[in-house]
């Protein structure tokens, strides 16, 4: 009963304080709004980059041509090896025999068809296309396959695609660092602003301590105040990100610049971001005020 009374009083006092210290509250809310918008932007970029990288990685594969003289035995051996390598870096592979290649080429154009008909033997090679799990080890896997003596050649898209994936990888890590840094900055700003409101009320805290209020009941109103400020501060960023991202997505029709770079669909992705922003605002607001009151409480 008493605990509930202290709780409701805490919530009431927090409301009062947010309204009474209007200018400071506005400052805290503006501060967290701005930083949370930056956090949201960084999160959206990070998530999209991550998705784009995954899409690109799917496109990267090793193409292996087996030697002309490779026997059925050896082909079988190679397949077995690839099965074993599934425990390693190989995700999947597709085997295409030279007959299949021939058929495909014949269907592709009449010129090829007549040319191939003139030849008595099939000049094409048996091939295997391998998709790997980790692009960073693409090279190692290729080297490993090259060592086999019945392999004529093993190649991967050395160049554009690989570099792009690497660049996106770096970008993704950078955005994660930026998100974390911005969250810290937000925590610092909200904490400082709340510290200002608390500084103006240190007499109140002092008297509460002297008349025998427990630390919990002193701290509670301030925790709620931080919570309210954090939540209020996350409303504008949430609206901005939802509308902003949906507009952006519609404007570009879901693709950025080229058809390779596909944006993440807004729903439910943007809802998660919104909830995350709310949570960050609330938690940071509370932590900020927790730290600030601590200074005036002997614990």
């Amino acid at each position, binding site marked *: 009963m*008493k605990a509930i*009374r202290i709780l409701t009083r805490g919530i009431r006092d927090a409301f009062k304080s947010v309204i009474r210290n209007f200018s400071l509250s506005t400052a805290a809310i503006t501060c967290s709004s701005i930083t949370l918008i930056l956090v949201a932007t960084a999160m959206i970029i990070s998530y999209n980059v991550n998705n784009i990288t995954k899409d690109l990685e799917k496109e990267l594969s090793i193409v292996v041509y087996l030697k002309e003289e490779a026997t059925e035995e050896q082909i079988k051996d190679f397949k077995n090896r690839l099965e074993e390598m599934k425990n390693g870096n190989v995700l999947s592979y597709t085997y295409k025999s030279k007959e299949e290649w021939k058929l495909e080429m014949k269907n592709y154009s009449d010129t090829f068809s007549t040319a191939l008909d003139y030849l008595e033997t099939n000049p094409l090679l048996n091939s295997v296309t391998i998709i790997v799990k980790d692009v960073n080890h693409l090279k190692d896997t290729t080297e490993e396959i090259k060592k086999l003596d019945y392999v004529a050649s093993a190649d991967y898209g050395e160049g554009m695609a690989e570099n792009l994936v690497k660049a996106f990888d770096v970008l993704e890590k950078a955005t994660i660092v930026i998100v974390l840094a911005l969250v810290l900055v937000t925590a610092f700003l909200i904490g400082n602003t709340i510290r200002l409101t608390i500084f103006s009320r240190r007499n109140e805290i002092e*008297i*509460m301590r002297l*008349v*025998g*209020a427990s630390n919990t009941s*002193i701290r509670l109103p301030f925790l709620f105040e931080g919570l309210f400020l954090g939540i209020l501060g996350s409303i504008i960023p949430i609206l901005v990100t939802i509308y902003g991202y949906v507009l952006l997505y519609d404007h570009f029709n879901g693709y950025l610049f080229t058809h390779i770079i596909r944006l993440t669909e807004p729903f439910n992705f943007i809802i998660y971001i919104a909830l995350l922003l709310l949570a960050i605002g609330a938690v940071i607001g509370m932590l900020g005020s927790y730290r600030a009151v601590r200074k005036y409480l002997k614990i």
Partner: protein
Amino acid sequence: MKLIEVKNCYKVYPNGVTAIADLNLSIEKGEFVFVIGASGSGKSTFIKLLYREEKPTNGSVFIGGINVAKLRNSKVYKLRRKIGNVFQDFKLLPKLTVYENVAFALESIGLHTKEIRPKVIKALENVGLKDKMRSFPNQLSGGEQQRVCIARAIVNEPKILICDEPTGNLDPEISKEIVLILDKINKESGTTIIMATHDKEIVNRMKKRVIHLENGVLVSDDKKGSYKEHESN
């Protein structure tokens, strides 16, 4: 039973100043005690040790049988509920009315609104300020503000009332009034009162027990003491 018992108490501040040195004394329930001494004599430190704003460096301070020197910070609030505090600078909240200032003490410790009202009104009656309960502190005189501070200190019916130079900012006439209110509280409800002061006239007139500190050492402890000139020099 002795309500307050100080044994071999030392207080050395981190900057090396010894504020209290080997203090031994005890105060009975219902006593009215003056603590006198020049500035820097350790009066304030002694008083802060009682309500556990400071911890003794050595020795013990028993309040109602509990050694507050060993009291954990998170439990101090339980001690504070048994002690009322009156300050030289009143420490009233300017945005609250007289009534709200007194009620604030009870709200802070989680009392129900229904219990708060009669207690606050009774405390304000005791200090003769019932008709000013809707005023704000800045609309009151210094003496009235100090009476509000006393009302706030006694509203929770504490066992001990600690007053750190309550008349320091007031003129002699008003000071007398304040001390008479404290005396009345002491007689009517048996609250133990410990009052630190500089005011010779009050001490000499009241004929109460006087504890005289100088440089942190107990100089004299008279049952019906007075503020002698030579003692303060």
